[in-house]
């Protein structure tokens, strides 16, 4: 497009007609009478005098005929005029001044036309000083110098009339302002972070020795008998009111608590409470920042601040994933809720991450193993997690419930229940399982096949064979054939040994390959 525009510009510029220019006509006599020279124009003065008059004294050439005296060619009109005036004065004869243009005689009209052309084409410029006799050149220069210089095209005008320039300067201003704001923000954040890091390191150093002394030099009873002032006296007094110092102290206590056992844990918790750090922790729950609330919840969990249970309970269905995950984890840990109701009441679906955390807590909390409320939860993901817990924790007493529940369970639950049955080798009737071999859910069919493979009987072979023949899914066919192979190799060879089907042939080879036994 640019090239096109440029091409257009250059080609069309060439075709444009020359514009006519205006000029102010000046009478040629006016110019000549001021003693100015017009290029190419010369003058000859001639006069007829009586024969007795010798005009050679006037620089006139002697007459060749008819007593006509004439000058040489004169450059200035005023010279010819002066001569004419002088002759007239002394001899009362006027004579004639003739104009020549490049040695050719020219009339007055012709001379005027020639002069106009010179002016029009700017070949002859009449200077003001030359034209005006009234103005003194020197005065004009002095006057001119007194006026301050003002350029005709000012930069300001040029910028303000150029739209691109206005836009560009606006962008530049916007960009510079945005950049400055960003730089300032980043600088502030970086400085704060650096200062905080330095302070945290310093506070850590200051906490380490007093905490070690309390742990290793004082008994649990000693610490119990100590007042808040006594313990605070060991620590830097002037820093105890600083929230950051308290945070560092709590983190140090938690860190030690994780790595210690027995009395040391009790000592640390005692120090934590004696210093009223639990109040500092609980205060965090009122923060507007999700990460501070979560930190508070984690601290409550680590330090077993049971009195904060009610406050933490407010967060179990919080919209923020981290707040609610940690709130539930904390309640599972510190509350006496052995029925896991906190989990059962979850409104949001449980993610695998949450399941991982809750499983770890439940696994190490011996009292919390009653999963029946989970299995009755309105939240499907909670019910699925409940079934998983039965499998992970080996809660065989729940298998009967699962068996009864199975027919009305949803697919995700069925898959988990089948895994559970598979693990414990338990199922009262395979009939309901066979029904699921016709499900459209591939994962469910595969789990059902896997269960049948482990606990199936002769009737199962028929169901599996039927499945292997009707399915168009390679993975299901492979699972079904593997199940038949496991249940009865002879039947398997009979059915599939000579199969011409490409998939079946490949699966046969796979199943018979000793290296792939566990694949």
């Amino acid at each position, binding site marked *: 497009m640019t*090239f096109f525009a440029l091409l257009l*510009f250059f080609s069309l510029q060439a075709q444009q007609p020359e514009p006519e220019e205006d000029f102010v006509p000046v009478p040629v006599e006016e110019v000549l009478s001021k003693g100015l020279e017009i290029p190419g124009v010369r003058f000859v003065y001639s006069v007829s005098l009586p024969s007795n008059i010798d005009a050679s004294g006037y620089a006139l050439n002697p007459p060749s005929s008819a007593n006509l005296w004439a000058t040489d060619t004169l450059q200035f009109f005023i010279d010819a005029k002066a001569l004419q005036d002088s002759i007239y004065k002394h001899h009362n004869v006027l004579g004639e001044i003739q104009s020549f243009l490049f040695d050719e005689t020219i009339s007055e009209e012709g001379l005027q036309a020639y002069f106009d052309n010179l002016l029009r084409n700017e070949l002859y410029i009449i200077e003001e000083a030359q034209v005006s006799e009234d103005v003194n050149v020197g005065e004009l220069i002095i006057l001119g110098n007194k006026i301050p210089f003002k350029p005709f095209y000012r930069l300001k005008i040029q910028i303000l009339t*150029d739209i691109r320039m206005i836009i560009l300067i606006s962008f530049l201003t916007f960009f510079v302002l945005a950049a400055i704001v960003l730089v300032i923000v980043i600088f502030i954040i970086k400085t704060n972070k650096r200062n905080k890091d330095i302070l945290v390191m310093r506070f850590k150093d200051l906490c380490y020795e007093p905490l070690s002394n309390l742990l290793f030099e004082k008994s649990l009873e000693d610490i119990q008998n100590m007042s808040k002032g006594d313990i605070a006296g060991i620590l830097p007094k002037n820093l105890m009111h600083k929230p950051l110092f308290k945070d560092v102290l709590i983190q140090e206590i938690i860190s030690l608590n994780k790595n210690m056992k027995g009395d040391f844990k009790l000592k640390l918790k005692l120090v934590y409470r004696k210093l009223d750090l639990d109040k500092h922790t609980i205060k965090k729950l009122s923060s507007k920042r999700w*990460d501070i609330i979560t930190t508070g919840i984690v601290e409550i969990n680590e330090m077993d601040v049971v009195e904060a249970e009610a406050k933490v309970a407010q967060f179990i269905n919080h919209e923020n994933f981290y707040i609610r995950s940690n709130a539930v984890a904390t309640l599972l840990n510190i509350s006496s809720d052995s029925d896991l109701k906190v989990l059962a009441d979850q409104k949001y679906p449980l*993610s*695998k*991450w949450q399941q991982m955390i809750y*499983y770890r807590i439940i696994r190490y909390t011996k009292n919390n193993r009653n999963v029946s409320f989970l299995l009755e939860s309105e939240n499907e993901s909670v019910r699925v997690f409940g079934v998983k817990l039965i499998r992970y924790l080996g809660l065989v007493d729940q298998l009967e419930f699962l068996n009864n529940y199975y027919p009305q369970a949803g697919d995700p639950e069925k898959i988990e229940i089948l895994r559970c049955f598979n693990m414990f080798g338990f199922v009262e009737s395979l009939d309901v399982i066979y029904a699921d071999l016709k499900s459209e859910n591939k994962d469910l069919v595969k789990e059902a096949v896997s269960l049948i493979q482990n606990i199936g009987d002769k009737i199962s072979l028929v169901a599996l064979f039927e499945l292997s023949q009707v399915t168009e899914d*390679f993975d299901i066919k*492979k699972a079904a054939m593997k199940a038949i192979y496991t249940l009865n190799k002879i039947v398997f060879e009979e059915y599939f040994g000579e199969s011409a089907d490409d998939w079946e042939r490949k699966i046969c080879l796979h199943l018979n390959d000793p290296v792939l036994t566990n694949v």
Partner: protein
Amino acid sequence: MYSLLFEILIEILGILFLLYSFFIIVSYLIMTVLSALEMRDHLRKNKFADYLDVVTSPVSPSISIIAPAYNEGLNIVQNAKSLMTLHYSKFEVIIVNDGSKDDSVEKMIESFDLVKTDFAFNPSIDCKPIRAIYKSTNRSFSKLTFVDKENGGKADALNAGINVSTMDVIACIDVDCILSSGSLTRMVRPFMEETNRKVIAVGGVIGVANNCEVKDGTVTDYRVPDSLLGKFQVIEYFRSFLMGRMAWTRINGLMLISGAFGFFNREIVLKVGGYFPQTVGEDMELIVRMRRYMEEEKVPYKVGFVPDPLCWTEVPESEEILSRQRNRWMRGTIETLQLHKKIGMNPKYGILGMISFPFWSIYEKNAPIMETIGVIYTLAMIITGDFSAIYLVALFVLIYFFSVLISSFSILYEQMAYNNYKNKKDLRSLLKIVLLEPFIIHPRVVWWGLKGHWDFLKGKGGWGIMIRSGFKKAVDKQEVGVTQN
């Protein structure tokens, strides 16, 4: 009249360039803020994550690591061993030999006691014939599967690996990448955390390993490369990963996950038909197709990104190799956008169609062309005399400082988030490159991009007709056979 037309054209072009520049600047400033917010949240979230649990938890998803290898005989054994020592309980390593002409197969067989098996798999994704699938007779290497196939390119090798894989999540990586031992636990976290949306893929940061000290498969001492191009790529990777992708993640608009280190939901990958081997930008194309599929099926989804330094690779320091890489990236971008042109500015595709796709089309794909036209325009204006020196200086200052600002921020992000490059000499060296880059390296990058456009127009490497006509639906790829290549 004609002169007026020219003036109007010049004005319009000038304003268009200004608007283009303005929107780039605004976009990048917004991205800077978004990435900062995302990084802040990520670092805060990291405080509450216990990754040790992930390693052993029965709830954690299983992972198939797929690493295609072509003529990697020199390091293939070491790299496979390194992959098998990653900290995770349920994972398999599938090394796919893509018809190497060196001794890769022999070395693998010898080192891992491999034997040819009759491994039966579902060939749901079309790929070049597989010669053999090997498993080890040594139980120590039970996690390893070695696939030997005919040469078909990286995407084809990955497709073969996907066919053989059996786990929930597939991790596609370059076999020469160095992975941190905790990389798997961190990368599966987004898959595990999400409650209301399906996480279809998770991308990770690739670090520049040139000149770094590596110990036990992890970079222990970060140093910037010696060469100019190496240093430039360090900054470019910061910009791309810590700023660009973090910002896109913030609005769930990420359209590219690096082919060297990407994790995918296997179920969705199979549904869309795996990688499309006929494009040179297979990594981007797969993500766009997966996203498109989810939008068409109206299933809530998310593409995650983990900014922690977990994977490192050697970047090319030779101009020739780098130019080829950039040419390929540009062609890949054009091909992907061409294949999925239907989603551009289509509200049905949400953020993907209305923000990510137009952004890539305007700024990533067309940037070299726009920059070149801008330079020609400026030169033309100077030649014709219709150009203000103030305008030129202002424009230059704007562009230069913008470039410096963005690059500096990316370094600052790295410093604030991870602070891996602790040596002040290295930092000074990077800052020097930030100042020089717009003059020395950027013009070359633009040139390589232009060559990419040119090569695309010539039909180099791609699959002309199919790419030009594009996919009508995300699942259309399944109808495309590899044999047509």
